[in-house]
């Protein structure tokens, strides 16, 4: 019996290799604390009912890239896309364990966290180079978008000719200025949203279907 099962699996694998349509892998990139995991969780919860990873206010909470496969998003006109969402660690040019101490983390743990965060950035960059078909670049709209790391990352994504959507998150906060992000990146669509409140998230889904479909 097991021989038949094995043979069946082999044949189906063989056929899958020929006929299965490769899903697009969409990476959520951005600086630490922009809300990348909150967005990944919301997308996963809205379309599959599951969560991806834990969220906290301490920067670099996500230190390993996490993937949620087979998410099918339906647009208003009925067209759909099936994607894998890759939630990546925050990309930054400097990681100092001292910034974690402010959040009540002990010194030893902070140093470990800094090391893991550094590995996380390397992993995020590896994925971007090897395995990502489209990017959601996430920014905190209360922060200055003209940071060296943002300009550099968007430049790298453009040089790889990957489709990119820029998400201006945290528009529910009083200091939010999505317009500043539009000014910084006029060459890309900018979608202002609030991940925690869920506002304007439908527009993001609509744009994702159009842009990554």
């Amino acid at each position, binding site marked *: 019996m097991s021989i038949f099962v094995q043979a069946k699996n082999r044949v189906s694998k063989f056929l899958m290799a020929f006929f299965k349509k490769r899903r697009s892998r969409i990476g959520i990139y951005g600086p630490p604390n922009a809300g990348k995991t909150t967005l990944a969780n919301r997308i996963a919860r809205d379309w599959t009912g599951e969560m991806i990873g834990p969220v906290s206010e301490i920067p670099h909470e996500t230190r390993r890239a996490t993937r949620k496969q087979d998410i099918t998003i339906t647009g208003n006109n009925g067209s759909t896309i099936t994607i894998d969402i890759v939630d990546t660690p925050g*990309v*930054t*040019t*400097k*990681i*100092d*364990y*001292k910034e974690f101490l402010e959040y009540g983390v002990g010194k030893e743990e*902070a*140093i470990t966290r*800094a*090391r893991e965060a*550094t590995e996380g*950035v*390397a992993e995020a*960059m*590896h994925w*971007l*180079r090897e395995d990502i078909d489209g990017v959601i670049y996430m920014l905190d709209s209360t922060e*200055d978008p*003209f*940071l*060296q*790391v943002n300009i*550099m*990352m968007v430049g*790298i994504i453009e040089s790889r000719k990957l489709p990119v959507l820029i998400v201006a998150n945290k528009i529910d906060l009083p200091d939010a200025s999505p317009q500043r992000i539009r000014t910084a990146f006029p060459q890309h669509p900018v979608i202002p949203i609030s991940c925690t409140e869920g506002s304007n998230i439908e527009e993001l889904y609509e744009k994702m279907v159009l842009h990554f479909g």
Partner: protein
Amino acid sequence: MVHTCAKCGKVYPDSSAEILIGCSECGGKKFYFERPDIRLKRIPADRDTPVPASPPSEASEKYPLEDNVGSRVESIRIVAPGTYELNIEKMAQSDDRVVGLGREGSYAVDLLSMSGAKKKKKSER
């Protein structure tokens, strides 16, 4: 954090519009990005006093090339335990890891990351 015009030496605070449109003095579009800790060491005078404009040769002496992250050879620099500087551009180019140690120009080269790693990954898939 400040940016200094590479041509005339005029200093701009972080996120100034001039970084994108060019220096208001000389129109130069290249700027040195400075870490505040290094800047404090170099300019012992009051930080609030304006820095006088200096000729380009003096500027390049004052701010050596190694401060320009983009031109660095390493992808990660371990400044101290738990403090890292990451060269995003280098990381975007390859997985090869050259690690800078401290500020003295010493490096650790991860030969493994430069040799069979790619083949191994392919066979894993």
